[in-house]
């Protein structure tokens, strides 16, 4: 048994796991910070909504669609100059976070928009009838009512980010996916491949069940 894992350097695995977690945490944080407001703006300016703005919505929607249709691997490379500008390096974990955020934010924003559209219009009307300002409608009615949907969106985005981080090895970001490609695939070290894939699977599993639990906890319907 030990022989089978002879290629596995547990220190490398540990460092790669840390890299993955750092990329995931960092990119998720910025994705939420940027994607949530973008999702709200998309929702508000969308068709038949409170601030219907055909032009603004069409423009934002177009940008979101462009970013979503680019394969992440291409985005990773195309973004290099901008990544340099933002983080000072296009390498490592720091070099991976801007493209990860750029890839996940439009995705997350769309999911947030959809979650907000699920909120019963009657609730918005009732809140308006109470004399709420737009900001109050968003913070007191829309976001609390859409919370389960937004949590589910966060879960899906986090899992998508896990698979994106696997590609971040291209810019030398490391991480479990990178290990799987370089050792498991390119050097035929099947044992490394299995260990990394199992770790990724565990990570995805944890994220999904955590997300599901939170959704259940916040669902009152």
């Amino acid at each position: 048994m030990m022989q089978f894992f002879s290629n596995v350097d547990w220190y490398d695995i540990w460092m790669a796991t840390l890299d993955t977690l750092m990329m995931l945490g960092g990119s998720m944080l910025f994705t939420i910070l940027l994607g949530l407001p973008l999702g709200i703006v998309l929702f508000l300016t969308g068709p038949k909504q409170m601030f219907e703005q055909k032009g603004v919505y069409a423009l934002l929607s177009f940008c979101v669609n462009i970013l979503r249709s680019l394969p992440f691997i291409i985005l990773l490379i195309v973004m290099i100059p901008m990544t340099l500008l933002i983080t000072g390096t296009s390498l490592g974990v720091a070099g991976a976070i801007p493209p990860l955020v750029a890839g996940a934010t439009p995705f997350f924003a769309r999911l947030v928009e959809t979650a907000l559209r699920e909120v019963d219009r009657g609730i918005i009307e009732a809140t308006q009838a109470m004399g709420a300002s737009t900001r109050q409608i968003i913070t007191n009615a829309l976001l609390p009512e859409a919370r389960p949907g937004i949590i589910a969106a966060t879960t899906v985005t986090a899992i998508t980010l896990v698979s994106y981080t696997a590609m971040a090895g291209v810019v030398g970001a490391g991480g479990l996916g990178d290990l799987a490609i370089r050792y498991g695939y390119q050097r035929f070290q099947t044992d490394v491949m299995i260990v990394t894939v199992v770790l990724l699977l565990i990570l995805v599993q944890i994220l999904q069940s955590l997300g599901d639990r939170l959704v259940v906890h916040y669902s009152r319907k």
Partner: protein
Amino acid sequence: MIQFERVHKTYQVGGREITALEPCNLYIPQGQIFGLIGHSGAGKSTLLRLINRLEAPSAGRILVDNEDVTAMDARALRQFRQRLGMIFQHFNLLSSKTVADNVAMPLKLAGSYSTTQISERVAMLLHRVGLSSHAQKYPAQLSGGQKQRVGIARALATNPRILLCDEATSALDPQTTAQVLQLLNELNRELNLTIVLITHEMDVIRRVCDQVAVMDAGHIVEQGQVSDLFLHPKHPTTRRFVYEAEHVDEQELSRDFAQVQGRIVRLTFKGEATYAPLLGQVARQSGVDYSILSGRIDHIRDTPYGQLTLSLVGGDADVAIEQLKAAQVTVEVIRA
């Protein structure tokens, strides 16, 4: 009080102009329960939403307590809305908040109440609507009637003078409807609350309203005291609503009339006259024999009424009619 001056509302749908409300004038006095009845699409929902400007009129002025709602800027409108309550057909409670938090919401939004004030007021309101023990539940755990009572408590949180009811009982079963209407009735009396309610059920109008306006295709076709409209409907739409509520079939009635002899009269008793033993007295004194062809006896809000269609045979029918009129009974001769 609420006043509409030549208010008019049109929508643009796909480049076409659709009229939701034809130019209309309306006056709703303070402290009354005012009903608006109409089929779906008649414009009653639009009219209701014009009062708190959830919809803006295309033309005309709306005055509430002498303030011009149509001229308010965003800030003034928000403050104005805080002085108005509204309840909805589908309750529109926030599913993510407890009953107590739902009721507290208008107070929190207003921003001028302390936490202690809010919790005291919420406790008082929930007690008033009989839901004190449900304060920490979520709306999904309540029945329809309970949800609407939470809606009412929430609408009254900021102590409004006016309550707007948008089909408030249409999603409820008959028994729960009766309870909610009873609550509205009590609140109207206790707080001198002006209530504007829209419905498509004449029965709701009969049970709680003082005045009613009947709407059809964007027009107010008939308007007045509920007792007048209900007992003597003039416009065909009004007639249809009343007959629907009373299960009257006009064709069936006229077939019945063809089979009886003598004069046919409709007598309407209101208030005390409803209980007086009039018919027997009049029959004895005038020598008229009568048979009852149709009838209804019930209450309009709290006023008892009776309406009987009789055929009068023999004796002196003119004397009988004079005696009935003298006793404050409205007599309509259907067939002389």
